[in-house]
């Protein structure tokens, strides 16, 4: 049996090395090993989207990725979305549009939304709902989230 593996990654633009057991999910590595607790756990089997992160340009549920698989990968988490103290337009849209209540799903939604708008700068309501269908929110009924994504799209196009 291997004990721990040395994994080299880039997280939010910075080189990050960590040690993990093969049985540790990337989510565990981010939260418990590296201390990036902005990525949340809601279900542990890929069905709530709270642990969504972006790996090499594509969003994944980090509870269904092994930490060791991240070798050489570039990972973006919620902690890397703002530019220093300047919030990203998506973060501003969520804040000003009251698109969060308890906030536990918010990091996952923001990471997923960012990937959507980078790929499709002007999505329809249906495209937004389809893209975000893997992210559960139990507080908002999604209305204000969908509107915040539409608002963010507008802000990003105007920027």
């Amino acid at each position, binding site marked *: 049996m291997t004990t721990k593996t040395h994994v080299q990654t880039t997280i939010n633009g910075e080189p990050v090395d960590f040690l993990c057991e093969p049985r540790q999910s990337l989510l565990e590595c981010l939260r418990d090993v590296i201390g990036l607790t902005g990525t949340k756990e809601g279900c542990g089997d890929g*069905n709530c989207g709270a642990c969504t992160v972006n790996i090499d340009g594509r969003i994944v549920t980090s509870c269904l990725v092994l930490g060791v698989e991240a070798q050489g990968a570039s990972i973006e988490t919620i902690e890397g979305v703002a530019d220093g103290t300047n919030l990203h337009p998506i973060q501003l849209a969520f804040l000003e549009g009251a698109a969060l209540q308890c906030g536990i799903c918010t990091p996952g939604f923001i990471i997923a939304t960012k990937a959507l708008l980078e790929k499709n700068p002007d999505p329809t309501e249906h495209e937004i709902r389809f893209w975000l269908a893997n992210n559960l929110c139990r507080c908002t009924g999604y209305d204000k989230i*969908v509107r915040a994504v539409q608002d963010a799209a507008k802000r990003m196009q105007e920027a």
Partner: protein
Amino acid sequence: MTTTDYDPNVVLSTENDFKVVGTRPVRHDGVDKVTGRAIYGADYDASGLLHGKILRSPHAHAKIISIDTSKAEALDGVHAVVTAADFPEAADKIMELGEDETKLRDLRGNILARDKVLYVGHAIAGIAATNAHVAEEALSLIEVEFEVLPSVMTTDEAMADGAPILHEDQTTEELGDDSGVVSNVAKHFQHIKGDIAEGFKQADVIVEREYNTVTVHQGYIAPHNGTAFWSADGRLHIWCETQGSFVVRDSLADLLDMPVSMIRVTPTEIGGGFGGKIPIYVEPVAALLSKKTGTPVKIVMTRKETFEGSGPTPGSKIKIKVGATKEGKITAAHAWMAMEAGAYAGSPVGAAAQCVFAAYDLENGLIDGFDVVVNKPKTAAYRAPGSPNAAFGFEQALNELAEKLGMDPIDLRLKNVATEGTRRVDGPVFQRIGAKEVLESMREHAHYLSEKQEGSGRGVAIGFWFNIGFDSACNIALNKDGTVNLTEGSTDVGGSRTSIAMQAAEVLGISAEDVRPSVVDTDTIGFTAVTGGSRTTFATGWAAYEAAQDVKKQCITRAASIWDVDPDHLQMEDGIISSKTDSELKMTIKELAAQLSDTGGGITGRASVKPRGVGGSFCGNIVDLSIDQETGKITIDRFTAIQDAGKALHPSYVEGQMQGGSVQGIGWELNEEYFMSDEGKMNNTSLLDYRMPTALDLPMIDTVIVEVANPGHPFGVRGIGEANIVPPTPAIANAVYDSCGSRITQLPMSPGSILEALKS
């Protein structure tokens, strides 16, 4: 529909002479939550932290013959194992849990089973280990000997003659009287108004039907969690996600038989609750493990544990009989309601009884309520607990009645609507309420006036939640620059600290941004009851109002001493202190604040309140849906929620509550349920199979806030968190009937059951 020809979110305002109340500032905790910096319970870390896991029962009902933990204790990395035997033997007593009361013995038994397990998922033992993987591995090394007993899963089974009994010492209570009959029925009560036999005689039309609902879960995204550190000096510190840090503290003091002052509970940010995070589950186990190990212990439930080991809302059987004259005047109504309490007494049937007929002025009414224990998890509150179950019955029956009478369903409701002065069947008389305004606003709404789309069905219903008051405390310290720091003890699930801060800002004449609100630990603020019952913005807001008045009074006194005038001659408006008699004397709160230190010291306002004047809230829905005729699948095409919010403090948050409650109701209606196996095991313990609505399952949720000010609050606030989950189930059922002509009386309305109904 991305563009609409009408305003999707309307505020029908009654009063607008406020500066801060009624505006939409960005929440104070918002930036932390959009940047991932906010610390939730599972995020908490401490040096030397151990990780705990809980062994849970595989049987729905069984005697525990023995528990052998020796092999688990011997595993490398395991630091401690605890069972029910580790609790101190405390005197049995009744505990006040804010809104909920329960027997200490029941609470203790639910946290770690002692002699019997009463449901699949019932906690038996806790393990602390160096990491969660080792703790999980060690669970399988605990040996438990069970004698399996027959189980009861529904109220029908539990109430049947000869049913297996969960608690041999439980007898049915009849409103303070012990019937002496050993039974699974923990409680029976009745409310009577008038004479229903006479009322039904006067009826020209009668509708009578039975309705059934099954267990559903609040579905908050963050599972239960808690970290405990039992320090060498005997103090216990808990960090957890809870709707009531003082409930956690006081429950622990009773369970662990220690002085309240030795326990400090720090509430972390909370990843949803909806009532489910009022009770405690893992905190006492973590505390016992920390006591044994001397190090902090964190326990985080899995999703499966959250389904099986926390408190869902009950399945229920509701029988409704209602009669009316040809003119549409309701002459009598009877509601018979039995609700599953789960393994220990305490279903929300009492609350259901206060809600079932609340929207209507009935001359003759009878409500029978039964609180029934079954071999399922002990139920907990879930957003207007009991009321959606009751409304699923009565609000469908009313539409059926309207059809028989040839009346518009909203007109029938308006003809019988409760108003100020109406005496409810359960006794109390309503003060100013907004049921009529909500119904009128529904009738006039563009949605209701619009043509239905070809093939779609439309349904309406309304719902009620009474809201509660209870204890709240608030402190406000005036800073030298005129900003204030506000501390309070209501854990904030959805933005309440901002709506509380806004009330202080309104009083002090400063901006919401100049108030920095913090939710603090139990050592730092006076007793504050749970965030529940839609009380927080109302009651803790009231405490903030009083504390701000205290600051205001002290500001005036201080200015009077600076100017050497009689304080009675001074006033404070819009953040400016001025003399009523001398126009030269004027100073802003900022100017005063800068002088505090040199003129006698700081100013702190404080208040502890237990307000009355709680205003109940009504919510109505209009829903359009279409049904795939070949598969039975329902698509919600358009949904409008209309709620009486009193004065909407922060309209975006009110809309958010309305939209969130509506969607929980939609999920309850369409697909959510505990699929139980014959052995009493939940078969769908993942979020894949417990099908809560996704973004793709829903339309926009349009809202109308109807402001009928609550005379019992300085700004007219009503609690608005709950009533909105009540009308969706009957409104959708009524729309299904409108679409296909079949009455669905069983929740959820899965596609298979709709297809059956279409065929018949």
